[in-house]
């Protein structure tokens, strides 16, 4: 059976897997972004706090994804929970690091001006610091999404959703007629999803980065 025949025959299954993968990555990215920015906001003003946050989130990244998911299974069971937890943890580092670097990189004289003209702490944060730090934060979110796309495939190991199922099925039945087709379909599907997400981020940047600081 040729690759194209395989695609045509399993269209429904592949689309469902792709949708589930995209949905899982998207939802985990939303959680990772909110959590990551919150962590950054709480820590960026103190030297050791910020560094601690970056080091901690970086540590998650050094744990192999397969191992992390394996460790999570006895704690939270199979399926969606270990997938969401693992993806969120992996997504944190780029967001936290870029948010901290971005917030620290805001020109101190602008923060001084914001304070000096009578902005409250909250207004300083939401009207000046976050908008100015937004381009690097968005880059962090973008990098994290690309990474999660790949890691999400591993989640199939814990019966998680997504195109990883396709790949694992193929690997499990290596030598059979459709093994290579399955692995190929899963992999190419992930690459396509990643590219689509990236395009969406470019658009998001156009829409959300103020014209005055856009390159």
């Amino acid at each position, binding site marked *: 059976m040729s690759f194209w025949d395989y695609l045509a025959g399993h269209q429904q299954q592949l689309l469902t897997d792709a949708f589930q993968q995209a949905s899982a990555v998207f939802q985990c990215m939303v959680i990772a972004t909110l959590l990551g920015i919150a962590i950054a906001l709480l820590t960026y003003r103190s030297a050791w706090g910020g560094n601690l946050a970056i080091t901690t989130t970086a540590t998650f990244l050094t744990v192999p994804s397969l191992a992390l998911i394996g460790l999570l299974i006895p704690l939270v069971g199979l399926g969606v929970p270990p997938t969401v937890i693992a993806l969120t943890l992996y997504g944190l580092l780029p967001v936290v690091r870029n948010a901290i670097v971005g917030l620290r990189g805001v020109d101190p*004289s602008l923060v*001084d001006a914001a304070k*000096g*003209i*009578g902005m409250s702490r909250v207004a300083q944060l939401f009207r000046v610091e976050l908008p*100015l730090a937004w381009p690097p934060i968005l880059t962090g979110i973008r990098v994290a999404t690309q990474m999660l796309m790949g890691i999400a495939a591993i989640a199939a190991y814990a019966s998680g959703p997504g195109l990883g199922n396709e790949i694992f099925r193929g690997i499990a039945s290596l030598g059979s007629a459709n093994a290579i087709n399955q692995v190929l379909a899963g992999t190419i599907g992930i690459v396509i999803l990643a590219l689509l997400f990236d395009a969406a981020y470019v658009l998001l940047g156009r829409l959300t980065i103020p014209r*005055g*600081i856009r390159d």
Partner: protein
Amino acid sequence: MTETATGTAAASAASGARIQLENLTKRYPGSPSPAVDDVSLEIKPGETVILVGPSGCGKSTTLRMINRLIEPTSGRIRIDEEDVTDIDPVGLRRKIGYAIQASGLFPHMTVAENIALVPKMVGWSKSRVKDRVEEMLDLVGLDPREFHGRYPRQLSGGQQQRVGVARALAADPPVLLMDEPFGAVDPITRDHLQDELIRLQRELHKTIVFVTHDFDEAIKLGDRIAVLRERSHIAQFDTPEAILTNPADDFVSGFVGAGAALKRLNLTRVRDVGIADFPTVSVDDPIESIFNKLREGPYNELLMLDRRNRPYKWLRRGDLMRAKGSPARAGQLVHDTVTRDATLHDALEAVLIDSSGRVAVTGRRGEFIGVVDMETLMNSVQEMLQADRLAAMEHEHDLEELRHHRTETELEGGADG
């Protein structure tokens, strides 16, 4: 258009408030000596006071304690008799304009959004804020239609600084704090901005506290100057004239630098000295009448004006002869003119460059008003320095008496206690 807009601005504006600093001290933890040590200063309503001193002398810290960007360790701050040392700093800062070096404009907001920030925060209505933005742009000499929607990076340094001042003044605060606002622009732009500030202040009468390390800037802008030495100790607090002619000590005279008499020229405007009349002819006058005027009058020289009454050429008696009667070729083009607002320094410069030692004074639209010559300048400088010296002597006498009086009361007080 500018005229009317600025006119209404001045009419509706809140004029300055009195600022009193009482024994203000800032001590940073872990540093043995305070950054600002026991400063007391009283600034009158509507006055421009310059804090000037070497870098690291605590002048900025002193300024930033007025709007409590830096909280004083001890001492009181009063604005219009209200003790603001312990009130909510955010509310306080909205009533105090704040302009800083390199403008501090938010790059992600348009010019209009930047200016509208404070009026919006204090709860002005949308339409009032909108009108105010236009008015402020007009006030600082930027065309509202052109600059309204621009982003700060699309402006030159000087324009950014103007917008910075507009933002600081937008909610019509009685007090304006300026922390080396013109420090980051080129000398020519700085000169323009200083002139603009003088013009603004003449209209608005805010209380301005201005920090700089440039003594020439201090002389030009200040009604009074506080020369600060380390830890913000006030070496001298007086009018520019008094500081120039009678520096309190070696530190101040060192800071004033050489050429105090020359700097004194920056304090007087051409309008304050005698502007002399000068015979003029127009380019449209027939050549015979020009000849007659030269021959009959006691003058050796005429000033030819163009059709819009602006100085055009200096004509000497011989010039017309040599040019064979054609006024188009005769005479010397007028290179330099000064306005009535120009300083004597500028006037002297122009006179020195001119070959016959005088310069034409022009009005708003460049129209001829009169001339200032070397002799007038010399005389007025002589008079000025003489008057300064007398004033300084009197001043010293007063101070002496005051000190004497104080010691006496202190002694009496001591006896009572």
